[in-house]
């Protein structure tokens, strides 16, 4: 029991990312409204970003900006003192990609709405079947 509890507490960030991912995926698959699906898509993407950021955390470390004096003189740098910067770099890219996808998806949503005058997927499919 204690083993399980330790497992849960030690990695709680990972559990939250899985939860968010499941919420996003559920909205993406099961929701009927197109905007809701897009929100789900974004939650899904941010969940992956949360996972990456969690990789970079080091206990007792500070943000990845090296302490230095005005003339760039600095103490010997210990990598363990700073949070791992690589996941942050990757996730900057991922965030920007997600907003780009969002822009395109919303543009297409507007097109869909003005063709069928509804955002509900079942109503749209019904209109297509009838025509």
């Amino acid at each position, binding site marked *: 029991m204690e083993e399980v509890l330790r497992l849960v507490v030690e990695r709680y960030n990972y559990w939250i990312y899985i939860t968010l991912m499941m919420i996003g995926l559920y909205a993406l698959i099961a929701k009927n409204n197109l905007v809701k699906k897009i929100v789900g898509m974004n939650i899904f993407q941010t969940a*992956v970003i949360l*996972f990456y950021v969690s990789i970079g955390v080091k206990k007792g470390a500070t943000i990845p900006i090296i302490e230095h004096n005005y003339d760039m003189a600095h103490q010997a740098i210990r990598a363990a003192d700073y949070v791992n910067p690589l996941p942050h770099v*990757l996730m900057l890219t991922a965030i920007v990609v997600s907003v780009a*996808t969002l822009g395109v998806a919303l543009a297409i949503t507007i097109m869909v709405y003005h063709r069928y005058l509804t955002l509900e997927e079942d109503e749209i499919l019904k209109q*297509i079947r009838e025509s």
Partner: protein
Amino acid sequence: MSQYYPALLIAIPLLAALFISASGWLRPALCFPLALTALGGSLLVSLGLLSNVIRGIPDVYLFGGWPPPWGIYYRVDHLSALVLAVVSIVGFVNLIAARPAVEKEFPEKAAPFYTLYVLFVTGLLGMVITGDAFNLYVLLEIAAITGYALIALGKGRAPLSSLHYIFMGTIGACFYLLGVGYLYIITGSLNMEDIARLLPPLYESKVVTVAFVILMVGIWLKMGFFPLHAWLPNAYTHAPSPVSSLVAPLMTKVMVYVMIRMVLTVFTVDYAFLVLKLNDAVVWLAVIAIVAGSLLALAEKDVKRMLTFIVVAEVGYMVGGFWLGNRAGFIGAVLHLVNDALMTLCLFLAVGNIVYAKGNSQWDSLPGLFRTMPWTMGALVVGALSIIGVPPTCGFFSKWYLLLGAIQGGHYGFLAALLFSSLVSVVLFFRIFEISYFEPFGASHGPDHGEDGPAGREAPLGMLVPLWMTALGLVLLGLYTGEIVDRVIRHAVPGMML
């Protein structure tokens, strides 16, 4: 000069895309020539890379001058050089054919169209050549976002289909990203070869297994492997014809290449075939994909939509051939990747011509086409023969290798599926030929449609020349199959499969 090729391959089309976008505002007439020059340039560069590789000159390019695990590097080997050549040829030929359709359907939006077109090809070229797992994700997204936009440009249902494609494509890309993250958390590296070096002691870890599964599912989603193909037929059918003849031949093939690259370079063949032992299951999935794709194609009454289901079946060929795990299967899969890109291009270009002349590709508009559009239909016949697998065309040879692989691997289910699908292709295409040759023109139309009405003319020369270039390419590729296998593909076969 040749050591700059990998950088030029990406830089030329990227810079050109920016110039096209700017010239759209300042000098619109320049858009098409710029796009043509850019893709022509990257075609030359990729052919140069291919010849370098054949002559045995290694090509590794360090971006920013940083050594591999820290910086990003591009690496060219036999497999990627071959796929690069295919991608740039298809992109270039299709661009020539796209011009009349673009001028007819959306003349005022030519500049953004060509910008996105060139960016799409850039993304695919980058995906093929990159040696960094995360860089592949970014390039994948470039190709995906431009692809979504180009597909949504079509008429009728196109925006909705494109939206579904966005949802599925984003899930696929995120799964890929998550898989890369799992590899990163356990190895600490993003460089493909570095990961491969660090993985062997970790084969027992659950993280690696799950990373493999997630990566494969993500890639399969993107390529439309059978149970995950739901987005593909609608998206490719409703897209405007110059777009579907660009996206359909390239996107799925490049994703197949990415799958092969992931298994060969990142996880290594030993892990995928000996540790996980998934190969039998995947080949059976491929069998289902081939059979289901063929059967679904039979039910369609629209030529373009039928072709999209053939694409689904062809994906099954390549995935199955690769996962057979023997030499003939591997050669068959790679050869089929090359051939299928050109076959699909030929068929979609022909259908594009029909759509250009008739407005749609329903069966109702087929009668009399052999008389009014003999050149288009001639090329369609060549493409169809290649898909069926009739000897002088290239489709025969790759199917031959796949069959050989199935027999060597003792996988008779795959063998049966291949033969069944060829048989179905015969039925599919001969039905089309029958309607368009024997049924009298005008039977389904009113009497007011004269024989030389505007709807009954052959497509313009600008669309016929690329179409026939592709059709002749199919025959030439078939004749030179031996050369390609000997000089290129044979060197790409991993040691374990020999």
